[in-house]
């Protein structure tokens, strides 16, 4: 009788992908025919030291000699790593190989000034943990990943705490321009070690050729550097992008299932390694990326700071009477400010932490809803999703809202599947926390409750017992109601006073996007995934809307799982409700207000990319394209001065503060710039630009037309500026990102 295809594992051909991958961590090294003997890690480490020392002396050589040395070393390294794989190569070799080549490229291109850096950096990158000398293979891999995370986190924190050290002291003045990008470079260093572990692990199991990885990375790196121009910044960015792309490909390679028949096996057999390490690495990177903020505070953040500077009771009172946001976030910020002060980083810390915690949360949510591959993919997407990064760097409530929103989804799925009382309670708590953070969270809650209702109807139709579901649901709703009870009178009071308020947050749209045009809708949707970009770029991206049809068509035949409809609901309900509401109140269709749809969208995308049955090539290609597009979007959003959401109040007000003297008058428009002016120029006497006499030696007018959202108001502000200018001479003018300072005498 012919064997059944499901009757493995006995029928599995020896050395097949799954068998081998699974066995890597289980088999003792002695039984592994290709595994090296337990290595002496210290010697493996020490043999790279001479290279570091040699690199320290390269400044004595000419440029041609440097290049020749770089080539020779690269060839030597390739040969060494490729040919020694079966004997004594370790992840440390891999990391050293990549690091050394990287350093040599940088030295060859930038010259001798960076030579001392070569030696130090090489040592840092190859640093093993001080642990036992002899390790078996599994321990070595685990240790290596730990080293990646620990060293990466330490370097990241050090760079963050002492940004001047690497830039000026260690690397010299040439790297001053690189500035905060060195954080990114540190992240790339961490990733290199992950690459090393992944490549080593994959080499026998999934046919990844180490040589291909090394040569591919270096060629891509050199190509990027040449493409961007041989500057320190380009080397740093190229190092990051190339390393990141390689990690994306290798990780997906690790996570991609084999052919369909293999998927019938238990899911743990599909994994070559526990993805927890990948997620830990991603979390470190997420932290680094979120700490990498160089923009000053903007209006809303300054308003938050002004609010939390008040005594607690007064702050709550002001919130109740003059604001339209719930108090949870500001209460947390109030405590944070008392502990760490009101520096930009201190007030943004809650958002940075929440935005970083979102990464492991996305992983566990994706893992529990679909599988681990989807979880890792969602975490990877979340790490680099530009909008998530943006709001993780803003002293507002959106990062916290995202954290609670994803947690609510996670606990709901767990509760429905497990029926555990604790999960139902957690679902209720997270839902309440969402609403205590932002009232628009009610839209996701509607979707989640709707999903429960649909589930109940289906279960009833299918004759299943409804009791556990209804009991759990009732419990979570009871928790929710109890927790929301104090918020209800607060909200009612705010609502009663809301007629007197100007609106929600300060409008942050482009003037060009005013009105609910199809362009505005699409622009918001593009922002949701790829972040904020210049007006011209947005018009070009939006023009590519036919590709959305491709996405819609691609969905045909997919997403039949019920839980997919929960995520789809969490994504579409806020969008649709706000769209309909915006037909009356146009400002409502704004990406910030439906930001809870973004993680749901990322989870869905992660599922579609990594779904079982998809081909390796398709999965790898889709993941790489997506992650690279996120990476490019992120870089453009973070560094491009044409990002319409960047307002350089810090620069403009520093100018005013440094130049305004007693007797000068400082005017600003629109009037809600008050708090940001107070924050950056607290000692300057400033008032809104209004009609009336101006008495003073010089008049500083600070204005932002982009923040003046209506054409009429813009005309009015311009009129007032013209009136101020009449009879005076303009003696200076400073333009910062979307902020204009004029000085009249």
């Amino acid at each position, binding site marked *: 009788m012919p064997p059944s295809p499901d009757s493995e594992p006995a029928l599995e051909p020896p050395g097949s992908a799954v068998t081998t991958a699974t066995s890597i961590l289980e088999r003792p090294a002695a039984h592994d025919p290709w595994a090296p003997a337990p290595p002496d890690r210290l010697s493996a480490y020490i043999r790279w030291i001479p290279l570091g020392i040699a690199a320290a002396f390269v400044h004595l050589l000419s440029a041609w000699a440097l290049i020749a040395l770089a080539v020779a070393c690269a060839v030597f390294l390739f040969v060494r790593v490729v040919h020694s794989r079966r004997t004594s190569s370790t992840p440390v070799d891999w990391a050293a190989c990549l690091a050394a080549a990287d350093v040599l490229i940088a030295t060859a291109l930038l010259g001798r000034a960076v030579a001392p850096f070569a030696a130090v950096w090489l040592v840092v990158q190859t640093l093993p943990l001080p642990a036992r000398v002899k390790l078996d293979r599994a321990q070595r891999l685990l240790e290596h990943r730990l080293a990646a995370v620990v060293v990466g986190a330490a370097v990241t924190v050090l760079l963050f705490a002492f940004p001047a050290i690497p830039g000026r002291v260690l690397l010299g003045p040439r790297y001053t321009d690189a500035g905060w990008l060195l954080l990114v470079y540190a992240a790339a260093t961490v990733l290199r070690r992950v690459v090393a572990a992944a490549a080593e692990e994959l080499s026998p199991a999934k046919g990844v050729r180490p040589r291909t990885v090394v040569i591919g990375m270096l060629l891509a790196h050199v190509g990027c550097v040449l493409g961007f121009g041989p500057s320190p910044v380009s080397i740093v960015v190229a190092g990051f992008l190339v390393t990141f792309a390689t990690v994306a490909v290798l990780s997906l390679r690790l996570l991609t299932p084999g052919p369909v028949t293999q998927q019938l096996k238990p899911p743990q057999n599909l994994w070559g390694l526990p993805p927890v390490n990948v997620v830990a690495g991603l979390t470190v990177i997420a932290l680094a990326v979120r700490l990498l903020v160089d923009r000053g505070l903007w209006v809303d953040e300054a308003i938050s700071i002004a609010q939390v500077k008040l005594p607690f009771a007064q702050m709550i009172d002001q919130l109740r009477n003059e604001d339209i946001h719930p108090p949870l976030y500001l209460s947390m910020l109030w405590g944070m400010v008392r502990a760490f002060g009101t520096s930009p980083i201190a007030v943004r810390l809650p958002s940075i932490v929440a935005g970083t915690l979102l990464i492991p949360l996305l992983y566990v949510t994706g893992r529990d809803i679909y599988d681990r591959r989807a979880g890792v993919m969602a975490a990877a997407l979340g790490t680099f999703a530009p909008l998530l990064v943006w709001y993780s760097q803003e002293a507002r409530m959106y990062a916290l809202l995202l954290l609670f929103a994803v947690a609510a989804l996670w606990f709901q799925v767990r509760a429905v599947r497990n029926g555990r009382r604790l999960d139902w309670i957690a679902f209720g708590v997270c839902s309440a926390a969402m609403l205590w953070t932002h009232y628009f969270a009610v839209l996701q809650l509607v979707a989640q409750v709707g999903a429960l209702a649909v589930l109940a109807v289906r279960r009833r139709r299918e004759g299943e017992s409804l009791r556990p579901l209804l009991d759990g649901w009732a419990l979570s709703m009871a928790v929710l109601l109890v927790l929301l009870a104090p918020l209800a009178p607060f909200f009612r009071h705010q609502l009663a006073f809301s007629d007197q308020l100007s609106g929600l947050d300060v409008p942050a749209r482009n003037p060009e996007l005013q009105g609910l045009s199809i362009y505005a809708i699409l622009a918001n949707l593009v922002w949701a995934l790829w972040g904020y970009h210049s007006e011209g770029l947005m018009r*070009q991206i939006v023009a*590519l809307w*036919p590709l959305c*049809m491709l996405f819609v*068509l691609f969905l045909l*035949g997919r997403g039949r799982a019920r839980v997919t409809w929960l995520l789809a609901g969490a994504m579409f309900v806020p969008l649709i409700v706000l769209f309909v509401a915006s037909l009356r109140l146009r400002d409502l269709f704004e990406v910030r207000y439906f930001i809870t749809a973004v993680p749901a969208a990322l989870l869905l995308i992660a599922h579609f990319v990594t779904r079982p049955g998809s081909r390796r090539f398709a999965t790898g290609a889709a993941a790489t394209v997506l992650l690279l597009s996120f990476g490019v979007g992120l870089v453009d959003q973070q560094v491009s001065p044409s990002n319409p959401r960047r307002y350089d109040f810090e620069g403009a007000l520093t100018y005013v503060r440094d130049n305004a003297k007693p007797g000068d008058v400082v005017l600003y428009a629109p009037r809600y710039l008050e708090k940001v002016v107070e924050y950056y120029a607290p000692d300057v006497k400033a008032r809104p630009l209004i009609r009336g006499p101006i008495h003073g030696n010089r008049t500083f007018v600070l204005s932002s037309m982009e923040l003046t959202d209506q054409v009429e108001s813009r005309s009015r502000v311009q009129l007032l500026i013209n009136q101020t200018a009449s009879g005076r001479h303009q003696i200076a003018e400073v333009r910062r990102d979307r902020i204009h300072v004029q000085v009249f005498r």
Partner: protein
Amino acid sequence: MKVDPRLAEADRPAVINGVDASRRVRALLLVNIALAAWYFLWLLHPDRVGHPVLYGLLVGAEIFNLVQAAGFWWTCVAARDRPRRAPTQSLAVDVLIPTYNEPPDVVEPTLAAACRLRWPEVRVALLDDGGRPEMGALAARYGAAYITRESNAGAKAGNINNALSLTYAPYVAVLDCDHVPDERFLEATLGPLEDEDVAFVQTPQYYANADRGVAAASWAQQALFFGPIARGKDGLDAMFCCGTNVVFRRAALEAVGGFPQESVTEDFELSLRLHEAGWRTVYVPDVLARGLAPEDMGSYVTQQFRWARGCVSSIPRILRARLPMRVRVQYLLSSMFFMSGWTLVVYMAMPVIRLLTGDQPIEATTANTFLLHFAPYFLAAISTVAVAGGGAYTFEAFALVAATWWIHVAACVAALLGRAGRFKVTPKQGAAGRQTAVMLPTLVTIGILLTAVLWGLERDHGPATLNNVGFAALHIAVLLRGAWPALEGERG
């Protein structure tokens, strides 16, 4: 040894698309009508006319697809979930298995299963148009009759007609030689035939090898047809015969002179004649036989071209036929589906022309509102397909139809020129290796689109150009996905 997927019990659905889609589609119907009106009222406004010829072509293509979509909605809404009916009589059945050049390992499981059918009086006959001795031996081994003939006139239709003249049972079951019947096949289909006016009972063509590639996409297309569409046709008494997994009343066949031999889609033409003669037809959605989908692109193209050629040629005949209006429209909808490749030509030509010449169908100043009107209609229409098909219709199925647009064009041209069609047997086993030659028209199309994209980007990066680049990229992606199984070089 590879297990024949037709014999594996796992994953076999009991019913094709068991979801009752009619209620859901009915709910979506009003939305579809409203959004179609929203779009077409905008499109047909005189202010929209850009380049008159291009505009005319675009409107023509859109109206054609609207008619197809409306026909689909109507069919789905009319879906009937027929109660199963057990037979009360036990009249004799002849089971005919026509074959021409298929290998014995394809035919044998079918023959073996046919000989195991649960029914008091079953006579199985292997109709071998290839005259192969090994088939004779195979039939003898299973105790089946072996029927062959001197010439192959009339191909499959002629083969069956020949067998009809040699057999006499009141019911005749026809099974393609790759379709392995379930032992309940006759018990599940003979009940409705006890109504004297029922000519045949059709059951789905289930593909057991549809795990990937062309076979999977092909099955997704079949699943949509044998799901909501066939149920709808049954509800409208307009179900036509699909050539296999069907049981006929011999009297009905004889009344219309047997299988028509002049058409390459003899089953379609036969159904038309039966309906014209006043016979009723019945569809039972239970999966009662498991067959093989075309595994490679060459087989798929052969199959689709034959269907397209036959159905398009039938259009004049349908227009002349004496049929109730609903039945006539159903036949027309099915036949005209094979003209939809022309609309793809129009859609693909628009961005190319815009990028190369600057001419566009919609007037430029109003083009920016196109999306606002088109997107809701498009989304609703796609959602309806997804809902009606219960998720069975996939992107890969859509891409495969799109990538073989030229089959429809070639079939229409052949029909217009009046060239006689030849019955080509669909290969039952896939060919190994790349099949780039088969997909040459698709590859040329991709090349043209790509050239237009590069040309356009070379000249301009404005939103208008990028919008057309987006359309061209959409077409390129869909065509590539559809052609991928042929380019990949793997079997099926």
